[in-house]
């Protein structure tokens, strides 16, 4: 496939504008022309999202455009990529893994957590976002229910750190600690705090969070 470059530019513009129809059509045509879902992901979706991520870094675009782009890509995945993967029976899912995200009990700060969620999504993770002020028991229960691969927690307030530790303790108590790698982040956290409470790792920014999640799942 030779014209990836122009396709990618067109794809970027479509998802930024939230033009689902155009984005879905472009993906469909590419597959009809012989591209595999993986090829489409690697040559179109992934570079487009990286491009958009960079534009957000420099604030040439703002959060609403990022959100629209991520939503539109989700629609493309649902309508075209996932069914094609299932059909090809390659057995390989396009998702890098499922990450549960929550701002812990007491804390209402959500901007950072939302940015992490977006960056994870645009980098190929599935995200289950439980919102803010989420009690530790709910985090553990939902992780089990959703069979997530990683638990990610955010706290900006020092007074909410004990609830993060609770999650690690509860997992331990239920003998399922090894099943769920735990990553924490937010302004009240740093790597030593992660270690102290028994989390697996810490992410200082959304970009670092993505890298660390890949590392946790051995995908780097």
């Amino acid at each position, binding site marked *: 496939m030779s014209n990836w470059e122009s396709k990618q530019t067109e794809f970027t513009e479509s998802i930024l504008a939230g033009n689902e129809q155009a984005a879905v059509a472009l993906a469909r045509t590419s597959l009809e022309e012989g591209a595999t879902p993986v090829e489409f992901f690697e040559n179109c979706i992934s570079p487009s999202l990286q491009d958009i991520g960079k534009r957000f870094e420099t604030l040439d675009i*703002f959060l609403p455009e990022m959100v629209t782009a991520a939503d539109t890509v989700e629609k493309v995945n649902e309508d075209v990529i996932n069914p094609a993967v299932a059909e090809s029976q390659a057995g390989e899912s396009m998702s890098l893994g499922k990450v549960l995200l929550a701002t812990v009990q007491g804390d209402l700060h959500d901007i950072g957590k939302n940015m992490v969620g977006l960056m994870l999504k645009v980098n190929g993770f599935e995200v289950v976002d439980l919102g803010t002020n989420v009690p530790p028991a709910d985090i553990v229960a939902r992780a089990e229910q959703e069979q997530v691969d990683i638990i990610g927690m955010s706290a900006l307030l020092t007074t909410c750190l004990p609830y993060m530790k609770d999650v690690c303790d509860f997992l331990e108590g239920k003998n399922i600690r090894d099943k769920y790698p735990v990553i924490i982040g937010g*302004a009240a956290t740093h790597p030593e705090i992660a270690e102290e409470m028994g989390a697996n790792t810490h992410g200082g920014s959304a970009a670092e969070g993505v890298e660390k999640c890949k590392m946790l799942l051995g995908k780097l």
Partner: protein
Amino acid sequence: MNNGMNYDLLLDALDKAENGPVLDEKEWDREVIGKNFRETLEKYDISMERDDPYITNDDALADRLYEAGMELAVKTGVYCIDTKRRMTWTREELESILSDMPDSVTLGTGDDTATVRRRRPEENSHVVIYGGPFGIPVSEELFIPFHEAYAREPLIEIFNLGTLLSTRGRKIRAGSPWEAVAAWQEKELAFEILERVGRPGMAMGCVEIATTEVGELAGTTLGGYRPTDAHKINFISEQKTAYHHLTEATHYAHVDAFSESYFNPMYGGYVGGAAGVALACVSGSIVMRACYQGTLNNIGPTHVHISASTHPEVLRALQLGLQALARNANFLTSPFIRPTTGPGTMEIFYETGALAVASAVAGCSYIDASQSAAGTHAGHASPLEVKFVAKLTHAVEGLSRADAAPIVAWMVDKYKDIQSEALTGKPFQELHDLETLDPTPEWNQMYLDAINEVNQEFGLNISG
């Protein structure tokens, strides 16, 4: 009557939170906020470009922004995240609420009162200094010396507090009895500090440790913080509230306490860029007054990547928002100064100074300084940056916007390229003698250098 809250209006706001139309939070963020902001900016032809001057000198633009903000306040309202409902007010309701706002208020008691007054842009009148390490984490051991150094600074008229890192050797857990224990300890320490500096009646921003309503209820009760202090209450960005906040507003009505309501519109978030933030300053102030009837109005726009309110684009937006509010209603407004740099750097003087000058000539009533090093590094704050802000602010009271513009531009130029480096400086205990609380000679010299520099550059006559 301290806060002068209208109880019927409060009950009406509580009703709205129960009975307004149900809405998904996502829809609120994207449609009600995102879309309406974009459309309103377009309709009123409000834009701000990266190479525009930092201080706008256009009354018609400020008034247009106010009108746009009022229209948006009516269109959007407030979202309650607990009831998932949208609270709305008609234009008549909002106008009546705003017309009842007093144009001045006196906080504190006895000899230690501070009167905050409505000011207009360029007005030659006193700007009250609300100083302290707002929200900055600090250990129990350092709490008293750290804060005492601020409280004894005579230029600070209302006193703000940092965040206790532990209480009686234990971890503080939000919403638990430990938050109540911490609130009471914070109150005891704060009163002790006021006694030590001989300013027992000075108003304080409180309850700082209140992550939830538990801390506020526990700290503002018999023998606790006083009604004459400034009790904090906020919006969740953008224009969202929760039972936690509405409970606090109700408590303030019952104990007749002054309150400081504040909100942090996100630059780069759902309101968009600088023009969106300017608009958010106006619409947020209007609906926040309707929702909480706060005494003071504090606006701390936040850059989505660096969290600072001093970023050049954010500063430009905030000063225009302040002008719009000051020209059109009795808001007693402050910028919330949150620099990226910390004490022990020269840049902190430029960062805090630029926003202080821009806000003073824009007509702010008081100045909240400073959440140094973006507020996240334990003990990284010093009263010297507040002293600098205070001296500079008083020196530019009455200056025209045109005359203030070069000062702001000069300062912004000195820090705009290093903000992403997060020069967090040094902690208090390395910059002050813990016995005398005086700044170290080196740190004091940096402060004097900063004063001398602005005196020389701009012909000011600020004493050290």
